[in-house]
């Protein structure tokens, strides 16, 4: 069985911007790390893929075994694509977190 896939919608240029401020982790890196912390604590495997919003594809909402994390790091390059993913996830019971 394939590990479930978590797509993280972030545009790398903006999502990693935080790294240059105050020496803290960037928002994108912090999001990936937070998913890793949760997986390890629960002892579950998940494949985390970073999806820039202008490369959103069908795999983002492949059901079953998909989850989506939206943001942080707006403005997105493809805001309408992000809204479409949110709609499909909402209507199809795909786990979704937006921060």
């Amino acid at each position, binding site marked *: 069985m394939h590990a479930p896939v978590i797509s993280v919608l972030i545009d790398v240029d903006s999502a990693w911007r935080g790294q240059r401020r105050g020496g803290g982790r960037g928002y994108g890196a912090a999001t990936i790390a*937070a998913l890793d*912390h949760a997986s390890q*604590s629960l002892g579950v495997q998940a494949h985390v893929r970073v999806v820039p919003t202008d490369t959103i594809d069908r795999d983002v909402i492949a059901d079953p075994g998909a989850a989506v994390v939206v943001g942080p790091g707006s403005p997105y390059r493809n805001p309408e694509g992000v809204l479409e993913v949110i709609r499909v996830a909402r209507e199809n019971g795909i786990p979704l977190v937006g921060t």
Partner: protein
Amino acid sequence: MLVEHARNLAGIPDAAHAEYGAGGTAVISLLACSLQGQTINLDLTPGSRLAELSGTLRTVEHTTCSYGLASDMQELASGHGLRVGAVDDTGEVRATERVDHPFYLATLYQPQLRSAPGRPHPVFVGLLNALTGTE
């Protein structure tokens, strides 16, 4: 997520995020006072999934938000399947969740900034649990 909700469920077809310009009805607007780099105290809604996951009704979170739910749009976060998950000390909505969905949570703060090895944030634990069906 609130823009999608407003457009497709709450009857505001031109709902918009102010960061993209002045067009449409601003659902998400620039905060009067930027919360960039702040910590905020949150009161979690008793009975909400967020409270259940957190095991408490009071948390401190980090935020980098310069934008939030517009003050005249606060009611958007409840109704049409949504319920408020958390409010901050000023009473503004900071989290909302769907009652009719396995896991649908929008935060106007950044839970990932409080996560650490061995101390995962409840929001991401909840997402993983929903994904792997162990909830």
